[in-house]
């Protein structure tokens, strides 16, 4: 009896260990093709894993900033228009609280530069810009516009080429200034001791 119990226990432990890597039960859905995965795989890891080949500089980005209509919403100087500030103004005091419903417009606070990783900027331009023509920019254009914003906010030099290798290595001003959310566990409070 004792050995049977032990066997059951051992079997349970094996099952628990492999709990998340189970074999399929329902056999619905199909395997996506590598092309289908590549086309949708647009969330860029801070390590840059999903970045495509391509390259761009601030100078190229400056020309695109005008030709792609960015300046129309974000202002010729990267602020002062209707859309969020991309190039921080130094002559105004930030109106922003830590979080604001209305992103900071015409402000010393450039939201894009808050991210501790330059990959966030590439990711967002690629997926979300320009307004109304999202997803239309080529990888070279996204690298160039990212370089332009980074250069104009004094994060990189004007002649630095941004590509798959360099972009994840850019040290953002906020790199050491953030805390990751803690591991989540069922049944635990948000913050022990917080009222």
């Amino acid at each position, binding site marked *: 009896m004792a050995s049977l119990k032990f066997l059951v226990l051992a079997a349970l432990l094996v099952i628990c260990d492999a709990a998340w890597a189970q074999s399929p039960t329902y056999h619905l859905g199909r395997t996506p093709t590598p092309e289908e995965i590549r086309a949708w795989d647009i969330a860029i890891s801070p390590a840059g894993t999903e970045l495509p080949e391509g390259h761009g500089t601030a100078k190229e980005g400056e020309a695109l900033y005008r030709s792609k209509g960015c300046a129309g919403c974000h202002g010729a100087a990267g602020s002062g228009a209707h859309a969020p500030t991309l190039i921080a103004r130094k002559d105004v005091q930030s109106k922003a609280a830590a979080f604001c419903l209305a992103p900071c417009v015409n402000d010393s606070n450039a939201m894009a530069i808050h991210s501790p990783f330059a990959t966030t900027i590439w990711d967002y331009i690629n997926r979300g810009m320009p307004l*109304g023509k999202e997803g239309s920019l080529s990888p070279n254009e996204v690298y160039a516009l990212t370089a332009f914003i980074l250069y104009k906010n004094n994060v990189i030099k004007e002649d630095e080429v941004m590509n798959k290798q360099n972009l994840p290595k850019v040290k953002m001003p906020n790199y050491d200034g*953030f805390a990751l959310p803690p591991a989540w566990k069922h049944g635990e409070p948000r913050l022990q001791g917080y009222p």
Partner: protein
Amino acid sequence: MDAKRGNRRRFLTRGAALAGLAAGGVRLAKGQTQGTPPKKIDELIAYGERSRFVTSIRVPVAERHSPDEFGLTFHVLTPLQDSSGIITPSSLFYTATHRGALVPDIDPREHRLMIHGMVDRPLIFTMEELKRLPYVSRIHFIECLGNRARPTHKTVQETHGLTSCAEWTGVPLSLLLKEAGVQNAASWIVAEGAEEVKGDSSIPLAKAMDDCIVCYAMNGEPLRPQQGFPLRLMVPGFEGIYQIKYLRRIKVVDRYYMTYDDYGHINPDAKVAALTHMIGPKSVITFPSGGQQLAGPGFYEISGLAWSGSGAIRGVEISTDGGRSWKNAELRSPALPMAHTRFGYHWNWDGKECVLMSRCTDELGTVQPTRAEAAKYWNKPLDENFRVQGADNSVQPWKITSEGSVQNGLA
């Protein structure tokens, strides 16, 4: 420039719809309490409507107008002051969008959900295939991080209208992830929508395997377009931004991805970062609430809602003297985990000026704080600049004047 023209077109279309609304408003004002003109009987048989004398509507937040100058819609508030029970009607459910993408027009026959990344078997599902799988129906609230009462707000719709509660039906996310076979080194997922900006958030894998639902229905019918038709993710108790609408992709990964939606949350203080995911215990009195008028001294049933991102509501207390003393309210609905819970309290108003408050306790024993208690915890002065960290779950005071008018106690 082309992009700008495109926006103007979009704005014009939406503007026409707005003009229609405005015309309805004028008619309403002239006819006084007449409501909108009755619909033909065959229309009402096909899809029922509320009485034309019931006129409760959603309104955009005042701080960021919708539609804005680009024609984009951002945050629209639910009329909590008119709510009963715990289910928000789908038409009145609050809505918030990733950069103004209000209603992508998605054909469900074309929609796909892909699961890939650190899985043994990447999978792509049609809506038909998803609906063949075992499903659950659960009642959960959603609340936006921006649901923050300000002294300038007049009504409970303005102070608390970015939360709603519905019954959600769909496939447990854990089932889909097990079907794909999650690899041992995985620790996060990135969930992504199909709207033009493709909003995405990093979500802990432990939560994804716990109680998340890939939903195709809400309150007994397919999701409304403003709620993510044909597919959305429900992450019970987490802030609204994680409840990805138009869900098209889940990538299993081994780190926080710091997406655009993620980095709006980051903070240098680890204690503040700990408040990133879940909504704290929160409650609000919906009657009597700001902007309402009491007829005179006598009996009133105080009514309100309580909810917590950490589980079920265990109890609600009411103060009718500005927080000096507290008495237990009664729960008037099932207290379901991560769901709005309705409470009630018998009250005889003596006609004197007073301040009403509610506070709740959740199943972990966490108590909803007053602003003063929150300020004390963070060691900050309690003035008008003090912001409760994380999603603001502080106690809402309603002041009753001796004339019976109800006003925001924060003002």
